[in-house]
């Protein structure tokens, strides 16, 4: 029984990590008033570029850096169209997703060919000496890939920056009232460019974790909606890093349960477990409404006066 709980928690955390990393970036992005639907495509690009980077450098960490680097370029394009050109953010996001589908398949075929599994360095598990001895939780939490630890540490750090520093205040103010920010001399465009680039970089890292932490190769369309789930986690976590952690753990649990339930005799079709995160999110956004931390200027491009 204890072993089952441990392995369940471990799977849960492993499933939740890419969602968490991507969602943390999206929190900053959303707080500044930008909806980044393109996160799905950015994660997809990240998952391929991570593998490509690891393939050529022989290091998973360098691969992740390549993923981040390429995504910085992609999110610069997103930012240019969404902030400077003031085009509809959702449509730009869709364009990025569509483009990413084409790009990743094409580049993958060019570098790795059809149907060849890539032999690359992936993220190894790192056991943390003393902490991993704690029963149940220790083995589940402190015997994971390094990105899992980074993601968990990032939660309080990003919360502190967002809620307790002047930078965080700037980001939140830009989301709530860009006009007022402009009046007091905050550069709205620069803040939004910054948050978009930040979320793009984290989406790249999240993608790299999917292809090199959860699995050990790139397959076409491997993100399969994880970016959209990360978006949902931001809403469910009410635009707070801590809330996002809880939300991604719930979503991770739903997919961890899916594997577990397939192995046991309980006959709930696994598709319903996979549906659960989406249903929970819809219910949650219907219930929040009044107390939502959603930025007031969400989705509205800002026109400099």
């Amino acid at each position, binding site marked *: 029984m204890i072993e089952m709980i441990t392995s369940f928690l471990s799977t849960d955390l492993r499933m939740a990590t890419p969602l968490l990393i991507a969602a943390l970036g999206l929190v900053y992005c959303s707080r500044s008033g930008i909806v980044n639907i393109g996160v799905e495509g950015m994660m997809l690009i990240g998952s391929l570029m991570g593998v490509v980077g690891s393939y050529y450098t022989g290091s998973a960490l360098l691969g992740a850096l390549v993923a981040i680097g390429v995504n910085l370029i992609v999110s610069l394009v997103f930012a240019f169209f969404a902030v400077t050109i003031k085009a509809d953010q959702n449509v730009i996001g869709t364009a990025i997703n569509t*483009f990413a589908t084409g790009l990743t398949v094409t580049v993958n075929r060019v570098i790795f060919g059809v149907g060849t599994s890539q032999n690359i360095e992936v993220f190894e598990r790192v056991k943390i000496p003393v902490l991993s001895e704690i029963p149940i939780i220790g083995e589940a939490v402190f015997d994971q890939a390094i990105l899992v630890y980074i993601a968990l540490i990032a939660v309080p750090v990003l919360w502190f920056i967002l809620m307790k520093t002047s930078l965080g205040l700037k980001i939140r103010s830009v989301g709530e009232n860009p006009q007022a920010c402009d009046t007091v001399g905050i550069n709205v465009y620069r803040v939004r460019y910054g948050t978009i680039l930040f979320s793009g970089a984290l989406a790249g890292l999240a993608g790299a974790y999917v292809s090199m932490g959860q699995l050990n190769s790139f397959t076409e369309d491997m993100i399969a909606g994880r970016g959209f789930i990360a978006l949902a986690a931001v809403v469910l976590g009410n635009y707070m890093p801590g809330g996002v952690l809880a939300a991604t753990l719930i979503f991770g649990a739903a997919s961890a349960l899916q594997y577990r339930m397939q192995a046991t005799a309980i006959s709930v079709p696994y598709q319903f477990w996979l*549906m659960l995160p989406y249903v929970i999110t819809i219910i949650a956004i219907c219930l929040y409404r009044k107390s939502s931390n959603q930025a007031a200027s969400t989705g509205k491009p800002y026109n400099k006066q």
Partner: protein
Amino acid sequence: MRKANKNKLVRFLEELYYPVIAVVVAILISGLMMQALGFDPINAYMYLFQGAFGSVASFSENFVKGIPLVFMGLSFAMAMRSGIINLGATGQLYIGALFGTFVGTHFAGLPIFIHLPLTLIAGFLGGGLMGWIVSFLKSRFGASELITTIMLNNIAIQLISYMVTGPMKDNASSSFPQSARILESAELPIILEGTRLHAGLIIAILAIVFYYVFLWWTRRGYEVRVVGANRYAGIYAGMNVRKNQMIAMMIAGGMAGLGGCIEILSVQTRLMQAFAGNTGFDGVAVALLGNNTPVGIGVSAFLFGMLNNGSSTMEMLARVPNAMIYMIQGLIILLVVGRNMFRFEGIRKKIRRKKRAKEA
């Protein structure tokens, strides 16, 4: 004043030049990317062209691929006209296909002129139901359609996966997860002998006509457009924003549902997991490139259908993955919505100012 004197043709051409430029530029950029990846772009585009126009059969295939895109484009455009971004075409398509499959595989013995329309109506209602859910959650709970549509897409995908592996699985035919075959009385007839071109084309054209008539010739359509263009103007004129958006979303969902249903009744004949791939999101590109106008949607659906069709020949003979066309498609969306980029408002203003200064 000058503008008012221009005749209709000139204005039409002016409307046209931008989308054409967007397509050309997207094809050029993709060509450069192909070059960079080690392909021969001219060769690839030649095979793409040959695949799309090489013979009567391959030419008619452009329409076969374009038909679902018409419905997805209409779905996105209809919602956008009412001020809603509908990213839920995927879910609406699948539920439409599900409803259509259910009716299409049951009621054996009905004559085709009853069974077929009934099946199509079911498809429309299935998609319309999904559209209604989105607008209901929006008006009742203030839930952003951005999140709900994407959530509903994924719910629908899982539901289809469950249905074809469980209750609707056809064990008689194979172990592959798929539904039973559509009855012949619900199948869309082929309208061009020797090709796959089916009567869905006629329905697509009718749908475009409906879109035009509804939005520009009915009072309800007028209200939808006013509410979408400026909701405060709509409210001021005493229009019910919620009601109009709800109707528009139901029609938008219905269009996507009908498109999914027609795919099942023609090309697919059986419901399968993920049979539609990226089609739902293709509607965004179709509607945007067509500027949400009836003719524009028809033409751009054909264009994307053609790219899609030609790309398989391109993949086979030039070894360029057919997913390449999604890069072109993504670029086209970027260029079309990035229209402001090419307007050079600042420069134009300066020139005008100089002119005025001279005249003075």
